[in-house]
């Protein structure tokens, strides 16, 4: 079936929904495609807050937020993008409140704010209250509020449509072509639909499911990233993957940094606040890469807790019942339900958990996808949110900046797409454009024998967790590159056991495994080539940051014999790179 709109939004998390809202307000015919229902998107799992220099609790300025973002990203951040992020954070948060978001309130009725890791006053002097929050379900409220406003604006949703390919006109995406639409598989009946459009936004989120211990939803398989990669567009800075310090032990379920923002502490097996060794000024509110490394080092040096000494504790007991129940209710519930631990009475076992892709689809400040080191635009193709790399997070994202990113650049994407649609002509899509992907899916669905995708997926998750985690070595990354290549080879022969057409999740999970492998390949190869330690990329053979050789963004291009890498300069405007201490 063929469906035409002027604009298509792929993914219905925060970035996609805000873009859709802008498009609807501008009167542009828009379809939103999601492989879930919109309210299932992973934006809804974000907990602690969204930073904006409102100054409701104490003095704050967007320039301070910009500085923290640049320093937090270990100076790999594009500073023009960080400036946009910090400036527009303020107006987007205010607009969200106007849309109805139920923020917690100060005694005088303003949006309440609290501390968060790496967010400081006066360029690093000490923590500042910048994170605007709705208890510890800020992401849930953002997702609900944006979805509610999309309903109000009459946005057309295609729920449970799984995008399986992108359509380009006049050449491939990496070869001068323009975006012309997508091909989507309707999950309910297995029909392929061809969607034509002038502008396409990829707001498909991250790919944390390539790791064994992750905070990410099952749906986060990097679909958008993999699809552009297959069309000759590079992936940027994929080696920078964030491990959040406080995942529930053994499970990876996230306990928000808000717990530490409210005064929670980290204790090792000896009951010691070990962060004093690593970040004496900010302590537990140091950026996530540093806290995760500190936890890893405590465990490595025998100071972990528990029978295997393989975790540390998050302690919130001293905060008292009122703070916990009013400001941290959900995460205390997680500890109770999933570990059987009562946080009011005992400290909670935690370990770092795979959380967020700093890298992704390269974009410019207008959310347009760019395909080389000269920032050549792919006409009509846009990306925003975790799927994109603009780059505001550089080598390490600060807490809450994921939400700021998807609000600011989701909104920008929608506005830019609306402007683009006014002047662009409708593409012409040849009949039968969906046949190659139909053949791929049919081959996967009907292959009579082969390996189980579930087995491969488990192997991939262990391989990446063991070798491309918090600490990396040359040998580990070599093992990851070879391991992913071997898995890709085996993937060509996997067999699904469900051969039906109605709601065939077996088939789609196998398809998603292919996307995860593409992302893992780009990540492992980019990591191997970056011979320095910066932000979340930390290796023992090159322990220092190397601004002479590596103050640059990696661009990984897909190739049949493995990816090829190129590098793009970092945009530096206000803040010269300095050593990073907290």
């Amino acid at each position, binding site marked *: 079936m063929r469906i035409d709109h002027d604009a298509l939004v792929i993914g219905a998390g925060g970035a996609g929904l805000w873009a859709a809202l802008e498009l609807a307000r501008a009167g542009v015919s828009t379809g939103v495609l999601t492989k*879930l*229902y919109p*309210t*299932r*998107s*992973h934006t*809804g*799992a974000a907990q602690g807050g969204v930073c904006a220099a409102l100054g409701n609790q104490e003095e704050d300025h967007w320039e301070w937020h910009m500085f923290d973002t640049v320093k937090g990203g270990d100076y790999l951040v594009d500073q023009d993008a960080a400036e946009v992020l910090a400036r527009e954070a303020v107006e987007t948060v*205010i607009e969200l*409140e*106007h*849309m*109805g978001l*139920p*923020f*917690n*309130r*100060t*005694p*005088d*009725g*303003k*949006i309440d704010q609290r501390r968060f890791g790496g967010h400081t006053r006066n360029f690093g002097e000490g923590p500042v209250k910048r994170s605007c929050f*709705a*208890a510890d*379900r800020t992401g*849930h*409220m953002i997702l*609900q509020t944006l979805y*509610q*406003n999309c*309903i*109000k604006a009459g946005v057309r949703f295609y*729920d449970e449509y799984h995008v399986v390919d992108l359509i380009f006109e006049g050449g491939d995406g990496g070869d001068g072509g323009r975006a012309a639409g997508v091909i989507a598989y309707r999950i*309910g009946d297995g029909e392929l639909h061809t969607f034509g459009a002038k502008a396409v936004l990829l707001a498909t989120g991250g790919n944390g499911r390539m790791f064994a211990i992750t905070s990410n*939803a*099952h*749906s986060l398989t990097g679909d958008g990233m993999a699809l552009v990669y297959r069309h000759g567009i590079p992936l940027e800075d994929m080696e920078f993957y964030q491990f959040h310090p406080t995942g529930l032990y053994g*499970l990876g*379920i996230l306990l928000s940094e808000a717990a530490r923002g409210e005064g929670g502490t980290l204790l090792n097996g000896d009951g010691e606040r070990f962060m004093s060794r690593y970040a004496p000024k900010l302590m537990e509110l140091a950026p996530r890469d540093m806290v995760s490394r500190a936890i890893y080092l405590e465990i490595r040096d025998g100071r972990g807790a528990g029978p295997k000494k393989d975790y540390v504790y998050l302690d919130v007991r001293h905060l008292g019942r009122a703070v916990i129940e009013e400001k941290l209710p*959900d995460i205390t*519930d*997680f500890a109770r*339900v*999933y*570990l*059987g631990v009562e946080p009011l009475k005992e400290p909670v076992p935690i370990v770092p958990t795979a959380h967020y892709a700093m890298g992704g689809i390269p974009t410019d400040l207008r959310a347009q996808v760019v395909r080389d080191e000269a920032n050549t635009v792919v006409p009509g193709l846009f990306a925003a949110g975790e799927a994109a790399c603009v780059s505001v997070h550089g080598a390490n994202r600060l807490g809450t900046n994921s939400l700021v990113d998807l609000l600011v650049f989701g909104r920008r994407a929608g506005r830019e797409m609306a402007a683009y649609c006014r002047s662009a002509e409708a593409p012409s899509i040849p009949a039968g454009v969906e046949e190659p992907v139909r053949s791929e899916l049919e081959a996967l669905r009907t292959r009579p024998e082969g390996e*189980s995708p*579930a087995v491969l997926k488990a192997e991939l998750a262990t391989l990446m967790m063991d070798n491309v985690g918090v600490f990396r070595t040359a040998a580990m990354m070599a093992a990851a590159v070879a391991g992913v290549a071997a898995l890709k080879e085996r993937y060509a022969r996997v067999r*699904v*056991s*469900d051969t*039906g*057409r*109605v*709601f*065939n*999740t*077996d088939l789609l999970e196998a398809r998603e495994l292919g996307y995860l492998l593409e992302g893992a390949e780009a990540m492992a190869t980019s990591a191997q080539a970056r011979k320095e330690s910066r932000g979340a990329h930390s290796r023992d053979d090159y322990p220092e940051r190397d601004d002479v050789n590596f103050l640059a963004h990696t661009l990984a291009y897909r190739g049949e014999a493995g990816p090829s890498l190129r590098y793009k300069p970092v945009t530096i405007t206000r803040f010269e790179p300095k050593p990073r201490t907290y």
Partner: protein
Amino acid sequence: MQVDLRILRFDPERDAAPHWESYRVEADPMDRVLNLLTVVKAEQDGTLTFRRSCAHGVCGSDAMLINGRNRLACKIRVDQLGRKIAVAPLTGLPVVKDLVVDMDGFFAKYRSVMPFLIADTPAPERERLQSQADRARYDDTTKCILCAACTTACPSFWAQPGYVGPAAIVNAHRFIFDTRDDAGDERLEILADKDGVWRCRTIFNCVDACPRGINITRAILEVSRAVVERSV
């Protein structure tokens, strides 16, 4: 421990009617039912079909009928259920396949109560002010994740499929009691309809079913009271 897991299976391409299938699964007492379903799908029968996403109780994808009560599969543990576990799709919505139900009607009811803020006054330059007490007034109903566990546990909904259902009323409540909203009257009019709040018989199944701990019956009663006060 060994768990006897029974699942109500239905594949519209093969089956004339739903039927129970049994599986033996090795489980840890702290495992969630979603872990068991995942193991069955990966190791015993890849055709087993269910929705899931976040796997920790915040996205609302995997509400199902588990040992006779509506629960999120990712939030109910084996040690809370015992060695015999029976899983079926939510009651009262059309079954698409196995544990997957058609949610479109559920979301249509949600949309029918105008679940969005309507403010008549122009937006100020900064945030609209709201006191902490006014914010607390509707806090409970902001927690809803639209999993449908409440509505599909409600005998009134089973008997009268036109009933808008607890989830939609919860989401109306979230706006009716928000001091920033000016459309409470319109929502109350919608809910004063014969398929609105009066279908509630205070059976409390919804409260038992809600994975977010929302006091749904209280929210419905507060809306009912507002409907009465409006009409006098």
